């Protein structure tokens, strides 16, 4: 690391321009050499060169040497996109002792060579223009110091379901005190209503019991049951939260990070498939509750209708869990129906343990599958395939597609087939219809293979409806200033690369409040969110990017418009009655700057002067 180069904003800029060929990606469509030559003619440009790959080691060396040999105090790289490569070149500047805010990027690949591939001359003109804009901006860059913000080493987890408990326990195990806020009177969330869980086929209550007990017992977890978040103020490392419970005094606390795990609800399919119109048309969760309470009616035929209200019918998305749940339930009905009957309970012969079919060895499952592919009913099959009590009860799963993704689920699907569960496909052109024929609940459907309308008398219809966002997610979203997606679920910072972060630092998300997920996924996300939240807490501080608003007190009239428009509450009135920036809370969007009627607010590193200079340079006739 070289010594830090002191750059006074009043010093004359000494700009170095590094124009990249990017192999032939730019060089093949833009005359890079002439562009570099042109750069030399621009004001304050001391040095300009072209590199085959500026991001390769020799390119980076040329930047460092340029800074040293030519005393450069502003660096421009004209190459690809700042979204991927700015950090690399900024780090290079810093390694040569130059403040990283004295670097500027010019994009002549994505925005130029790649989109004007047949217009070399005009593309080259454009590259020259873009560099002229970059130089105009670079001349006005000033070094910035990044502020260090201390982080309170404690957190709050909102939601006491599986995801929330897992996240809270992870943080607690790391030694951080955690507030766990659950609005219901008990922990367990959505899962506590369910009967048994797929893959393990174990009872839901038994599965989450250890988690609940551990959460309750952990010395670092402060439980707030029957409570809700009342307010959140502050920014990463320094959130002032208020937790309120009915009939109790509000609890105030300071936390460093926030994890949102508020879960989801089941869609109530009013108006679909005879729900609420005919008896024994129930949702998946209602069915689970009936099973759990051992209160099923006597039945011979059960229809399960998949995608009820999802995938374009009401909600756009696939709810991801319902296929596996339906398969699990179908097997459960066939195997275990007797134990879930209301009658059994009355007779006092309830078997608590859900009997699971003896596990079939892998190779046999594989063999059966292969054989089924060739020909049905070969000799020997009858011995191996244990017929479920399907003479007694028939289950038909009406589906658009079965999404039994993952390692175990396809085998469970095969198992259901072996147990004579019927899978009948429907298309959106021919939705199944649920109606009463006399006193008989009936499903009418179009058989896609036979191309025939068929009817099926049934005793119960189970509707697999999607998980939907909490109806009051919007309130929390506004309180935390984090976004919701189009379907009302919380929206992560980056769908692929930052799935449990919010774009707002210090706030994280996990579980079904960010979209349908099963328990495995919710636990994975919760563990991820906890470890992400632990990073700033373990480190003890964060470095805030020097990209914030700055108020010129001489121009500010104290009108307060900026305070109204700031989405982060990062502006307040000072004692002088003027606008004041809470630097650690400011995200640097610049909305206040564009709003200020006095022109008193600008942004560090995106100043009005810099942006106007860029615009002016863009419109200037080439010299």
């Amino acid at each position, binding site marked *: 690391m070289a010594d830090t180069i002191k750059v006074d904003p009043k010093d004359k800029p000494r700009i170095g321009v590094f124009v990249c060929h990017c192999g032939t990606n730019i060089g093949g469509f833009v005359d890079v050499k002439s562009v570099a030559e042109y750069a030399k003619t621009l004001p304050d440009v001391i040095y300009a060169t072209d590199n085959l790959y500026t991001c390769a080691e020799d390119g980076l060396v040329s930047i460092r040497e340029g800074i040293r040999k030519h005393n450069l105090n502003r660096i421009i790289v004209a190459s690809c996109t700042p*979204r991927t490569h700015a950090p690399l070149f900024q780090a290079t500047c810093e390694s040569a002792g130059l403040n990283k805010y004295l670097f500027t990027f010019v994009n002549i690949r994505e925005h130029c060579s*790649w*989109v004007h591939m047949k217009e070399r001359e005009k593309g080259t003109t454009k590259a020259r223009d873009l560099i002229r804009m970059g130089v105009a901006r670079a001349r006005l860059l000033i070094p910035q110091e990044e502020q260090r913000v201390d982080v309170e080493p404690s957190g709050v987890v909102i939601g006491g379901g599986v995801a929330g408990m897992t996240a809270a326990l992870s943080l607690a195990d790391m030694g951080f005190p955690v507030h766990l806020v659950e609005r219901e009177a008990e922990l367990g969330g959505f899962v506590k209503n369910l009967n048994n869980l797929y893959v393990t086929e174990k009872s839901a209550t038994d599965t989450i019991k250890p988690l609940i007990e551990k959460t309750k017992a952990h010395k670092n977890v402060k439980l707030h049951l029957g409570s809700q978040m009342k307010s959140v103020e502050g920014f990463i490392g320094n959130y002032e939260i208020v937790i309120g419970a009915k009939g109790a005094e509000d609890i105030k606390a300071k936390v460093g990070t926030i994890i949102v795990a508020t879960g989801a609800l089941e869609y109530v399919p009013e108006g679909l498939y005879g729900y609420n119109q005919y008896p024994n048309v129930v949702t998946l969760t209602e069915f689970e509750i009936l099973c759990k309470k051992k209160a099923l009616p006597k039945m011979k035929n059960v229809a399960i209708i998949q995608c009820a209200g999802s995938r374009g019918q009401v909600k756009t998305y696939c709810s991801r869990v319902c296929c596996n749940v339906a398969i699990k339930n179908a097997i459960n009905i066939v195997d275990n129906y007797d134990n879930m009957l209301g009658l059994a309970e009355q007779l006092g012969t309830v078997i608590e343990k859900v009997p699971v079919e003896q596990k079939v060895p892998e190779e046999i499952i594989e063999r059966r599958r292969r054989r089924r592919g060739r020909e049905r009913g070969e000799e020997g099959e009858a011995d191996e395939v244990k017929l479920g009590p399907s003479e007694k009860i028939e289950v038909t799963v009406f589906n658009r597609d079965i999404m039994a993704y993952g390692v175990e689920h396809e085998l469970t699907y095969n198992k259901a087939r072996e147990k004579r569960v019927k899978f009948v496909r429907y298309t959106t052109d021919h939705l199944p219809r649920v109606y009463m024929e006399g006193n008989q609940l009936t499903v009418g459907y179009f058989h896609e293979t036979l191309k025939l309308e068929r009817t099926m008398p049934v005793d119960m219809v189970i509707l697999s409806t999607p998980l939907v966002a909490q109806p009051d997610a919007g309130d929390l979203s506004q309180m935390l200033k984090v976004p919701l997606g189009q379907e009302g679920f919380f929206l992560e910072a980056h769908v692929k690369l930052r799935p449990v972060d919010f774009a707002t630092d210090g706030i994280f998300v996990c579980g079904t409040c960010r979209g349908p997920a099963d328990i495995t996924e919710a636990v994975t996300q919760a563990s991820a969110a906890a470890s992400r939240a632990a990073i700033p807490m373990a480190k003890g501080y964060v470095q805030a990017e020097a990209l914030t608003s700055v108020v010129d007190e001489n121009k500010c009239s104290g009108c307060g418009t900026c305070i109204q428009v700031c989405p982060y509450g990062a502006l307040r009135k000072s004692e002088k009655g003027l606008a004041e920036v809470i630097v650690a809370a400011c995200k640097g969007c610049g909305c206040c700057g564009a709003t200020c009627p006095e022109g008193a607010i600008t942004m560090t590193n995106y100043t009005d002067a810099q942006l106007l200079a860029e615009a002016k340079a863009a419109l200037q006739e080439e010299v």
Partner: protein
Amino acid sequence: MSTEAAHHGSPTASEGEKAFDPKLLVFCCNWCSYAGADLAGVSRLQMPPYFRVIRVMCSARVDPEFVLRAFERGADGVLVAGCHPADCHYIGGNYRTRRRIALLKMLIQQFGFDPERLKLEWVSAGEGEKFQKTIVEFTNTVKELGPSPYRGGV
């Protein structure tokens, strides 16, 4: 699909009689539209070479003054591109932008500009094709309108 269909196949662009090289300034928000423009590049979607992108963190950073100054300096068109409603990286900056642009469109008419010279479009990080389409259409619109009455400055 040909990456050039939308650009070269356009009848308006090939009419020719109003051909001039328009100067188009495009403000792109860092999080959605700039990324959308990047994606258009990565996808090699060809576009007329007259637009120049200025990166801002949020479309709400675009001070109305920036737009007016651009027209004053001879811009033939100004495009502001931001995240879709409800998708703003800064929660709701794009809603402010939407209102400002609506007002600015009224304002620039007072200066003798066709309001079509100012355009607001939502382009997400995944909408490379929409970025291309927006640029192609906007270029054609401005070409139709001809050079800015303020061309060369005032």
